[in-house]
């Protein structure tokens, strides 16, 4: 499984803090983006950063592994 995490404004729009998505061999980040885009378009609108296992990833073709933790995040507003 892939653990998909949401925080703050994104979590509010998704209506959940976490989703579990079945892992499929050869899966890339783009497939998760497509899934979120189809089911929660208003949440995707405010996603500015994506992290895979707590490191920011910009390449949408980034290959995923079973057990990965993927976070879809709005612009940070801490401090």
């Amino acid at each position: 499984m892939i653990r998909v995490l949401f925080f703050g404004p994104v979590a509010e729009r998704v209506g959940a803090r976490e989703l579990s998505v079945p892992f499929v061999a050869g899966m890339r980040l783009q497939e998760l983006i497509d899934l979120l885009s189809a089911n929660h378009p208003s949440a995707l609108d405010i996603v500015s950063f994506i992290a895979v296992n707590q490191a920011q990833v910009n390449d949408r073709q980034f290959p995923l592994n079973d057990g990965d933790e993927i976070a879809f995040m709005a612009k940070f507003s801490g401090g």
Partner: protein
Amino acid sequence: MNEPVRIQQEDFSQDAEIAALKASSLRIGGIATFLGCARDFSEGRDVSEISFEAYGSMALAEMNTLRSEAIANFKLIDARIVHRVTTVRAGDNIVFIATAAEHRAAAFDACRWIIDELKQRVPIWKKEITPEGDAWVTPHP
């Protein structure tokens, strides 16, 4: 001794943080600090409370990276970063940064750099709770 980089609900003491910083060396000539506080007013609206949420594990890792980069790039003797993740009211402490160096220029430069970078790089979000309703804060570009 507390860790030099922390995310916590509870408030912190500047005296305690500075004492911890000083314990690391007798070569410290200057300590710059920045304390971010909750205001009762933001962009024309009254704010009753501010609520914070973090991607805790990633936020802590980024803050530790920021501290290490600041120590290396500004030749600091030591630095500490504390961010509260809880609900605060006007006047309450939110974030504290302290940078210790042999001379003051490096301490000031590093302290400012850390808070600027923290706002850009650390996954924490704030929601302002106002009499007219709640709203997640969207940072300016």
